[in-house]
């Protein structure tokens, strides 16, 4: 029984990690190897692919191309970073303020508004597609990065999460600060935010990952291909884009991985806090 339990867990873990390990290892494959194993994908030939985890001969060629010799990839990477970081910074600021407001203050319409936030949070992105387009068109923002960034900042998940997180702060703590003469802003900055560290970290990661993977928005709102982020480019793998594709995959993996490694404990803590109520 114990063995069976352990077996299930190990199997699930392997399943969870396989694509991740696969991308990393294949990034170190030389061009010849790529064409040998994945040639069918590039040329459309009718040959079976081989499962190829470890490169036969390790090579940095693909990574060299992606990182140094061809600037196109890195530009897409920086496009991605710019868009994602801007959304994350904006969303976290706005959500912390609003989450604090929803959680700690009574005002008319609070409940109705929050229900609206929850409903919008649950809806698929496509529901707001036309709405977004209409307003961005009126503001003359179509084609600019703002068209992708602004709606992202005001998406409702962050507010929902931060309200949940701040609901967990014991009332007495904030009350004590108030009696000591701390104003509403002071209480937020010096007490609520530090306590909510875990929640903020998990919002950062969830938001970053979500936007790092955005495919629909750039294709609709950014007209020029040069402005596309890495995710849209990676999404086109089907055509068999050449040996650089796995190196690009690794490039796309890096920022998320760094964030995840750095905030790993906070992430599970933050997810946990959000689910209490």
């Amino acid at each position: 029984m114990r063995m069976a339990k352990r077996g299930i867990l190990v199997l699930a873990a392997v399943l969870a990690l396989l694509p991740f390990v696969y991308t990393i290892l294949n990034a170190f494959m030389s061009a010849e190897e790529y064409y040998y194993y994945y040639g069918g994908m590039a040329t459309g030939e009718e040959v079976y692919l081989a499962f190829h985890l470890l490169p036969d001969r390790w090579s940095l060629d693909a990574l060299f191309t992606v990182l140094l010799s061809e600037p196109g990839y890195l530009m897409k990477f920086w496009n991605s970073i710019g868009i994602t970081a801007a959304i994350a910074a904006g969303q976290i600021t706005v959500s912390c303020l609003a989450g604090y407001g929803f959680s700690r203050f009574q005002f008319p319409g609070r409940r109705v508004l929050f229900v609206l936030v929850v409903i919008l949070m649950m809806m698929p992105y496509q529901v707001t597609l036309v709405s977004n387009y209409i307003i961005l068109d009126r503001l003359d923002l179509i084609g600019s990065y703002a068209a992708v960034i602004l709606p992202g900042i005001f998406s409702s998940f962050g507010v929902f999460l931060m309200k949940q997180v701040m609901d967990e702060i014991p009332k007495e703590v904030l009350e004590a600060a108030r009696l000591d003469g701390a104003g509403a802003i002071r209480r937020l900055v010096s007490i609520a935010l530090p306590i909510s560290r875990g929640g903020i970290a998990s919002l950062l990661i969830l938001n970053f990952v979500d936007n790092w993977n955005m495919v629909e928005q750039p294709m609709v709102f950014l007209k020029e291909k040069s402005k596309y982020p890495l995710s849209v480019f990676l999404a086109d793998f089907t055509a068999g884009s050449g040996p650089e594709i796995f190196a690009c995959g690794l490039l796309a993996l890096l920022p998320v991985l760094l964030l995840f490694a750095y905030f790993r404990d906070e992430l599970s803590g933050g997810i946990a806090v959000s689910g209490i109520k």
Partner: protein
Amino acid sequence: MSLKKRESLTGILFVLPFLAGFLLFYIIPFGISVGYSFTSGIGGGTFAGWTHYAEVLQSYAFQLAASNTFRFMGIGIPLIMVISLCLSLLLYGNARRTKLFQSIFLYPMVIPIGSVVMFVQVMLSEFGIFNRILYQLGWEEKDWFQSGLAFYVLLFLYIWKNCGYNMVLFLTGLQAIPAECEEAAKLDGAGKRQYFRYIQCPLLAPSALFVFVMSVINAFKCYREAYLLGGKYPHKSIYMLQHFMNNNFENLNYQRLSVAAILVFLLIFLLVILLFAGKYRSESDGGSRKKIRRGRGGKRTSKRFPHGT
């Protein structure tokens, strides 16, 4: 100004930045698209009444998309909830194991979708690994993306990706049940199964509610995977409401898209009302239950934020 008024004003000021953007980018434009759904012609020339609604509801594409979405959620959500609950039970009570596996199971969520799709292509494309194995075994090869199998591929990806997140939520719920409960149940002669059925299950209800909400959100997000694997017109078993809306958007058919969007909005509105109503009812009749949850709150807070406080 009275204290109460000042309080509510402060609250509104905190919410204001979000509210401004939320209204501008979501609520007001949504109002405009409600307008679209009742009018015809570009710019909304003539009043069309319910004709667009009738048209959309009768169209084959919409019916297919709606029934696929319901099917996907109807199968996917219960399945992912059961699987993640089982995984969390496997980890529960073993701190070392929890620490190790918890973050491993979160990896699928943070891996860029591009890498995942790449991997799936290598595995399941026409000349991929799976078909190679089938071929070598002498069985018939399968078309994984352009047949009814596509639905199950998508379902698998959905569960694979989101299981870890749900598991963490369930695990927290389990860890929050006070140890005294288990001791008391044992003294009363309850076995493991009874303990699960009568103590853990009811106390997990709040976690389950949240897992459900997140699962709905993530099920809708599966459109990305479906799109990347099948394009705009995938096999008809994974043609979802999101495809319907996206395609109508690209064909500039805003009326049809608006109608579909409003129908989805109404459905989710109903769902949220039901969920909230259920939540408040269970909170008002379960005073003792609430107390238990409260009691855990303080303990957990101090444990959860080792760096914060």
